[in-house]
């Protein structure tokens, strides 16, 4: 049992805005005062209390990040090393941290839940093995679906009911938590060197399947299956100047349905080419603000070195040609693909400067903090351990002005950041880093300091230096256990893994098996991930909507 007394509590899920409250913890959950009559007391007088952070979109485990690790040994050797102790495994931080270090670094900045946002079913077993090696935090994963050949073939034939059963089957086979769609149709076309950039044009190899109907059908299926997290969408034309038109059109295709737009910054550009590229955050935020069916995460960019990894194979080939740096490409049979390119965002580079401003603009122009979340699309825009730097930029307009002084002079008229003077409050920050993403993921027990919720809490010392304050919490408590205290890692418990089991027709196996044997190079019975392979599985409800 644990009591935390006298702190200023920021708990947006329960509309508590900085009031001094005491928190009581027993058996890993928040309880009422009467159920907690002994145990340690943390005197948090003068301190700030947030629910544990929830990362709605990150890449921390699986084939792609592991490929990125292999490609960047030069970064590993200059980064912070975690030295092993009796209770802690060794590892390395940096652009693509090792699994154990990932858990320590996330917990070290007060995050207690992470959502791995891109898992091919074919290598889901690998992803789960890595996730079980990430200590402390709770985890979930999203499975890639928008370029799956069997699914696209069913759409082509108009077999939507069958497609729904197949999606549910795949989800359970991967032991995933939700559905991710990356460059719908584009990654499938990339197998033959093509892309899909127009929402209404058929995907190569198909007559009826367009990116637009892939997203609309997937969103429909996800709602019908009652999957807690809506379609998690990486739109077509990521990173391309002028792509805001594609993004807006995609949003129109999803009107009236739930949808989460991943790393919106990469989809919010105006202009016609690299020379005229500008931020289109104003028009995008305007549309977004008027449509409450959508949530998004920022995909913000920070200047510095990182490694970009995405299922968007064609984009990565373009990035390789642009930068001339290392390029890794993985094609995942007929399901999806992946590309990896190390990248350095420079303030002197006009495109990078526009990207930096666009991410912040979206966070500041979208007025409902319950619908826009903190993310850098780790490691694409910046590494997750740099989130506190972004929080500082959000909380201080003066600091933003200081940073903008380093941008190229010709950025004028390409960004709106200089005209925005909004500053985030602590309450709003607690919403975008914890309560909001937890709600979007359908994890009611997370991002919540109310009785019955998981006792994941962060306690910060007040500090005028916001980046330092959020980068180095005084205490981090995970499931009622103090894991970080005064900057030291105290305990490294294993986290849970959230999975769902949508119901599907038991005949789906018989339907899929012949198709599978025709298209895959692994046997059908080896394909689904066995339940025993999930460490601490936690089945979340998945009920079709009435």
């Amino acid at each position, binding site marked *: 049992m644990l009591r935390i007394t006298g702190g200023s509590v920021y708990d947006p899920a329960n509309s508590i805005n900085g009031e001094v409250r005491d928190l009581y913890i027993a058996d890993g959950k928040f309880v009422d005062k009467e159920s907690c009559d002994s145990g340690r007391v943390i005197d948090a007088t003068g301190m700030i209390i947030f629910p544990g952070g929830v990362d709605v979109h990150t890449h921390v*485990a699986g*084939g792609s990040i*592991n*490929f990125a*690790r*292999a490609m960047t*040994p030069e970064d*590993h*050797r*200059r*980064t*912070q*090393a*975690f*030295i*092993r*102790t*009796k209770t*802690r*495994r*060794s*590892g*390395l*931080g*940096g652009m*693509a*941290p*090792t*699994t*154990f270090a990932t858990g320590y*670094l996330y917990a070290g900045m007060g995050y207690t839940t992470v959502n791995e946002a891109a898992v091919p079913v*074919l*290598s889901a*077993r*690998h992803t789960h*093995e*890595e996730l079980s*090696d990430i200590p402390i935090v709770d985890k979930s994963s999203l499975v890639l679906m928008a370029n799956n050949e069997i699914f696209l073939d069913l759409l082509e034939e108009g077999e939507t009911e069958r497609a729904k059963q197949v999606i549910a089957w795949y989800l359970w086979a991967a032991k995933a938590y939700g559905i991710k769609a990356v460059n719908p149709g584009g990654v499938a076309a*990339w*197998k*033959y*060197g093509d892309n899909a950039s127009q929402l209404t044009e058929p995907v190569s190899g198909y007559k009826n399947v367009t990116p637009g109907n892939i997203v609309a059908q997937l969103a429909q299926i996800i709602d019908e299956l009652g999957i807690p997290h809506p379609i998690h969408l990486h739109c077509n034309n990521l990173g391309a100047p002028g792509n805001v038109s594609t993004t807006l059109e995609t949003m129109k295709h999803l009107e009236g349905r739930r949808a989460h737009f991943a790393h919106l910054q990469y989809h919010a550009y105006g202009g016609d080419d690299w020379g005229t590229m500008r931020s289109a955050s104003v028009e995008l935020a305007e549309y977004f603000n008027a449509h409450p069916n959508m949530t998004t995460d920022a995909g913000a960019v920070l200047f510095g070195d990182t490694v970009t990894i995405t299922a968007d194979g064609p984009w990565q080939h373009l990035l*390789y*040609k642009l930068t001339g740096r290392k*390029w890794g*490409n993985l*094609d995942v049979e007929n399901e999806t693909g992946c590309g990896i390119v190390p990248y350095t965002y420079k303030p002197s580079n006009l495109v990078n400067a526009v990207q930096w401003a666009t991410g912040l603009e979206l966070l500041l122009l979208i007025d409902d903090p319950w619908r826009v979340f903190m993310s850098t699309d780790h490691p694409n825009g910046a*590494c997750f*351990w740099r989130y506190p730097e972004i929080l500082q930029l959000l909380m201080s307009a003066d600091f933003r002005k200081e940073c903008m002084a380093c941008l190229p002079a010709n950025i004028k008229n390409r960004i709106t950041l200089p005209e925005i003077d909004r500053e985030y409050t602590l309450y709003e920050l607690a919403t975008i880093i914890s309560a909001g993403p937890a709600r979007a993921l359908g994890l009611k027990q997370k991002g919540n300091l109310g009785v019955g919720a998981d006792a994941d809490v962060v306690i910060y010392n007040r500090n005028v230096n916001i980046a330092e304050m959020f*980068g180095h919490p005084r205490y981090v408590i995970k499931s009622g256990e103090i894991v*970080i205290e005064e*900057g*030291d*890692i*105290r305990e490294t418990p294993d986290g849970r893994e959230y999975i769902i089991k949508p119901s599907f027709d038991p005949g789906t196996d018989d339907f899929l098996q012949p198709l599978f044997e*025709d*298209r895959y190079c*692994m046997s059908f019975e*080896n394909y689904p991930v*066995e339940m025993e392979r999930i460490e601490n599985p936690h089945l979340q409800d998945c009920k079709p909507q009435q």
Partner: protein
Amino acid sequence: MQKSRFLPRGRKDRTMVLVDIRETKSVKAADIFLQVRPGKDFELLTILRAMIKDQPISDAEVAETGVSIEALQDLVARMKAAKFGAMFFGMGLSMTRGKHMNSAALLTLAAEMNAFTKFVAMPMRGHGNVTGADVIMRWQTGYPFGISFNRGYPRYNPGEFSTVDVLVRGDTDCVFVIGADPGATMPQPAIDHLARVPTIVLDPHVTHTSRLAKVHITTAPAGISAPGTAYRMDEIPLPLRPALKSSYPTDEEVTRRIKEAIQAKPDWMVEGPQRLETQV
């Protein structure tokens, strides 16, 4: 070979080109065989890189590789006309004159071919679950092999920390061998060192290494009587389902028990917490 939507006639719709220094058994399976002069892989690959971009090459440079210009022109035309090209390479490239430079040249050729059509390249791995070892080392330490933990955290330097180098230098005072037979393949100084120090081998069979080891623990063979996971060459994990029962323990069980026994001993690392410092 698998038939598919885009290659309905299976093998007949595919073209296989084999490049080797001698006629191997694989030649029969190939449509085209190109015999490269030993040690000239890098030159051949560099010429191909020039040819796909229509850059000038001299007859003397081509003659040096042992392959005719006509054959190379035909190869380049076929590569560019392919819908999807894949290059597989093995130790003949990575362990001969030029070593990693050869691999780099081939990978660059594959990357550059994407200006014309879809091309990929993949290393052919050795025996056993070597890809699996690679994959796990990468997620746990950031590096695939050649790792030293002697400072308490992973450091990487192939040529210094690779098994063969550590053994040849005689840097270890104990060797633990699992799923490998270095006694059969490594240079003599490395083998001498294996015999000199306490070498412990976990293997279902008697091997060259187990003969010179101080301890050989017989384990159940993975995939036959021990469960587990093997990573395919393309890093797709496959579950191993044992068909038989074995009275021998699995590699995992033996390793776990050795680890527990070691953990019971006093720790040699400095005790105390570590601070989360600022990342760079």
